[in-house]
């Protein structure tokens, strides 16, 4: 009896293990209607992926540096990698995330999402090829991150120049240990953006190179001396890891004070990005191949572009809410704009503003009048957008 009980228990446990074991990743190309996307914008793609899966479309995403994303579209460099090596693709249905393997010869990307203008990655004396479209999407901010326990609260542009340009010789305490200064490499859009912001050439950053933004977070979290550690992150990643890291206020040249991306250290309203006080930001660049008429070659790519630039709402998905939660600012909530990497700012009034809604989502309150239709709105703010009265 005792033996049979033990045998039964063993068989049940083994069966349980077999049921619980994840299936090996299969080829991405075998999935229904695969659409290949790479680069940044992870949270945006994940949410779109879940929505489109219900339409029989599989968004397959490879998270990698912005300049690699640009290369994948401009030069057609295929996406390669496997789940086992941690370099494969990710895809979603409405409830779960999965992994898949790219084909041995790779798969050509349909869409690339870059944090920076393509010309920041490499010289394009004649601009982008005529068959490549660059569409500007939501805005992400970039900054300098330290471990949460660090007492440091701000950094200036000049200080960042010395820290990341000179490393051990920076002279800016406490950031003088290159083993605790974490960088990303030339292929990273975050580093490309901050290179332009600080003036440190992207290929001359000093410090210890991390393999990814997640690796930056890990290195900051595990740094032996939390005061000496500093790295670079996009706002989306910092928010995902805000128990571990914090972003420093940034004081640009000519500024009398340093500003967080948000109105306070604990807010999530991106107020200073939206009004120009925080200067290191740029729109997502959604890159895709165009047909001879100048339109995205695939219908799904065209939809992704439309969702990104805000001319179309994804079915059943509140993209403003998704972006707000991720610390990304839709164009409709911006009050400044720029047309070049870290270029001059100018005031901006979105064609269909969602600023009030964005405030309500991130601050829990807004001074804007609520509405159901435009009839409910005053003359000073006659447009009813997202149930709030806006100027337009």
């Amino acid at each position, binding site marked *: 009896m005792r033996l049979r009980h033990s045998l039964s228990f063993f068989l049940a446990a083994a069966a349980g293990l077999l049921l619980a074991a994840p299936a090996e990743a299969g080829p991405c190309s075998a999935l229904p209607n695969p659409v290949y996307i790479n680069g940044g914008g992870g949270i945006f793609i994940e949410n779109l992926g879940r929505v489109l899966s219900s339409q029989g479309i599989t968004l397959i995403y490879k998270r990698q540096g912005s300049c690699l994303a640009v290369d994948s579209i401009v030069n057609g460099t295929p996406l390669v990698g496997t789940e086992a090596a941690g370099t494969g693709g990710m895809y979603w249905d409405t409830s779960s995330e999965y992994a898949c393997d790219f084909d041995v010869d790779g798969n050509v990307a349909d869409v690339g999402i870059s944090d920076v203008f393509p010309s920041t990655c490499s010289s394009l004396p004649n601009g982008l090829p005529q068959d490549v479209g660059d569409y500007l999407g939501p805005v992400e901010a970039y900054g300098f991150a330290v471990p949460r326990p660090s007492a440091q609260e*701000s950094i200036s542009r000049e200080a960042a120049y010395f820290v990341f340009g*000179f490393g051990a010789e920076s002279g800016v305490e406490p950031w003088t240990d290159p083993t605790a200064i974490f960088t990303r490499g030339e292929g990273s859009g975050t580093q490309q953006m901050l290179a332009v912001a600080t003036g440190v050439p992207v290929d001359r950053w000093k410090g210890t190179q991390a393999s990814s933004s997640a690796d930056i977070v890990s290195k900051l979290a595990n740094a032996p001396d939390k005061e000496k550690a500093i790295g670079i992150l996009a706002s989306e990643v910092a928010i995902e890891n805000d128990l571990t890291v914090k972003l420093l206020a940034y004081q640009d040249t000519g*500024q009398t004070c340093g500003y967080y991306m948000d109105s306070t250290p604990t807010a999530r309203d991106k107020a200073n990005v939206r*009004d*120009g006080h925080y200067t290191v930001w740029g729109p997502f660049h959604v890159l895709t191949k165009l047909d001879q008429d100048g339109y995205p070659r695939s219908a799904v790519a065209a939809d992704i572009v439309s969702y990104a630039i805000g001319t179309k709402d994804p079915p059943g998905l509140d993209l403003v809410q998704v972006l707000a939660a991720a610390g990304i600012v839709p164009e409709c909530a911006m009050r400044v704009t720029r047309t070049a990497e870290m270029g001059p700012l100018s005031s901006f009034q979105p064609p269909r503003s969602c600023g009030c809604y964005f405030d309500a989502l991130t601050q829990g309150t807004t001074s804007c009048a609520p509405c159901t239709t435009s009839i409910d709105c005053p003359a000073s703010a006659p447009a009813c957008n997202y149930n709030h009265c806006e100027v337009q």
Partner: protein
Amino acid sequence: MVSSFGGRTLYAVATATMSFSSPQESSKGRAARRSRVLAWLGVALAAAAAIPVGCSLGNLSPDACGQSGECAALFGAGSECVDGFCTDPVKCEDDADCTAGACRGGYCAVGSCEGAVSGRPCFACAPETRAEFLNACTNATCVPFDKARVTKLLPDGTLPPVP
């Protein structure tokens, strides 16, 4: 790129030479403005070989001092760019003194107008230039970075090339 070292030098010299006066000035305000104008001219002549003349956030080029926001950021709320040079900031006895007039903002603290929350001068009108956007009045928290922590600027205040 603006030279912050140049700005500090100019402000220090301008302050030191405020004793200049003109018998033709009939108001204390215009006299103070003339003093500042003369101070800027004196510095400009002395540094003409290396630094362009004018007033801005440390840069002396005349056309850069076309925006009052720059003067407000450097000298205090209410300081305006007139004929290429910055006037004195607004002196006040109460908050109403700070909000009166165009492009004046902040609140009255210890006799001069300060930014709403940061306690620093700010630009209160709709910003148009980089300096005005960066220093526009706001209720947002700000954390100043101690510039003394940057210890390896070149003698002229500029940044050395990255190795």
